[in-house]
């Protein structure tokens, strides 16, 4: 029983509101808002309202992963972790060059992301739960990522973290020739 899934992302997309009135004098109750036969008033809030009075919750729950599927997911994760750990020995196997190091780092981050998504998606049931949970968690993760990346870059972490230190020579000044008359 799918509810009218009018998704209004409750974190900011405020375009479609129930009593969005154009003309100055149009009164409050806009024609849009009628109560659908299914008993649940057609709501345009964060789409999270489908559970409202829908009888028992999350119809999707019956067919959560079976134990067998969890085992396969576990083996995949184990395999990925072994692969990750192996990158420690790559410099010995493929030569200790920068290229190997960059490839190893990108592989590591990729595997990390995959494991992250797998555990969150399957073990933590994010794939099967209502979308609002997914939105809350992903919002938190991306939020943390964005803020700390900005903070690190403004602490010139990426350029060279060789911060001009006590007895380092001070960085040379970008000297542009100021025209004599200036």
């Amino acid at each position, binding site marked *: 029983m799918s509810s009218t899934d009018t998704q209004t992302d409750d974190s900011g997309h405020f375009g479609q509101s129930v009593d969005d009135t154009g003309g100055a004098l149009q009164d409050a109750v806009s024609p849009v808002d009628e109560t659908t036969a299914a008993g649940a008033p057609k709501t345009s809030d964060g789409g999270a309202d489908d*559970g409202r*009075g829908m009888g028992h*919750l999350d119809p999707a729950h019956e067919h959560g992963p079976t134990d067998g599927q*969890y*085992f396969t997911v576990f083996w995949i994760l184990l395999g990925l972790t072994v692969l*990750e750990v192996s990158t420690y020995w790559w410099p010995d196997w493929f030569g200790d060059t920068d290229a190997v190091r960059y490839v190893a780092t990108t592989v*590591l981050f990729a595997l990390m992301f995959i494991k992250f998504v797998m555990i969150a998606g399957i073990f933590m049931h994010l794939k099967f739960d209502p979308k609002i949970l997914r939105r809350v968690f992903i919002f938190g993760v991306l939020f943390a990522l964005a803020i700390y990346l900005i903070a690190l870059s403004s602490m010139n972490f990426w350029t060279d973290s060789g911060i001009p230190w006590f007895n380092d020579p001070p960085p040379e000044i970008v000297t542009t020739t100021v025209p004599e008359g200036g």
Partner: protein
Amino acid sequence: MAEVSLEPAQDLEFPDDPHATATGISNPKLAMWVYLASDCLLFGGLISTYMVYRNRPGEIEGLAGSSLQISELFDIPFTSMTTFILLMSSLTMVLSVTSAMRGDHQRMRLWLGTTALLGALFLGGQIYEFSVFVSEGAGFTTNVSTSAFFTLTGFHGAHVFVGVLMLLSMLGLSFKREIEAEGVEVLGLFWHFVDIVWVVIFTVVYLVV
């Protein structure tokens, strides 16, 4: 005429009665997810602190204190063993949640106990690893790199420790009186989150050179 509905606006005694909530998710579950989202910020901060400080003692000359960088002391094979253990505990946690859902008491307690054991094993491994570091001269106050490392892994260890405590309490309570299947699932969320954070820490701290 005031619209009246016998539908209980809020089932306060059992607020986690989902069909009473507006989003269709039970309160404890939504609360746990909101908490986990905020915990991302906490671990994000600690990881950024570590990344700023990790090879600063070696990189910058003229600093007081030892110029030992914690990454020189890592014993990857041992730490990958503890990572496997934590990963396995995530599996046993899921199994205990599904058996709780099925109402199969026996297996739930079995898997809860194994998860707690594996968690404790992971903690033991960490404490051993720390003692090795300290013996090699990388104490908490040695320099910036070691204190950042110990703070980050210490906070994660604290979360694991609280997780193990909760697992054991859930195990104990399941003998005394009924526990909600929901309770086991929310505890599972916390435990998987702790495992996810270790996935990130293990990669960023130990493996990325």
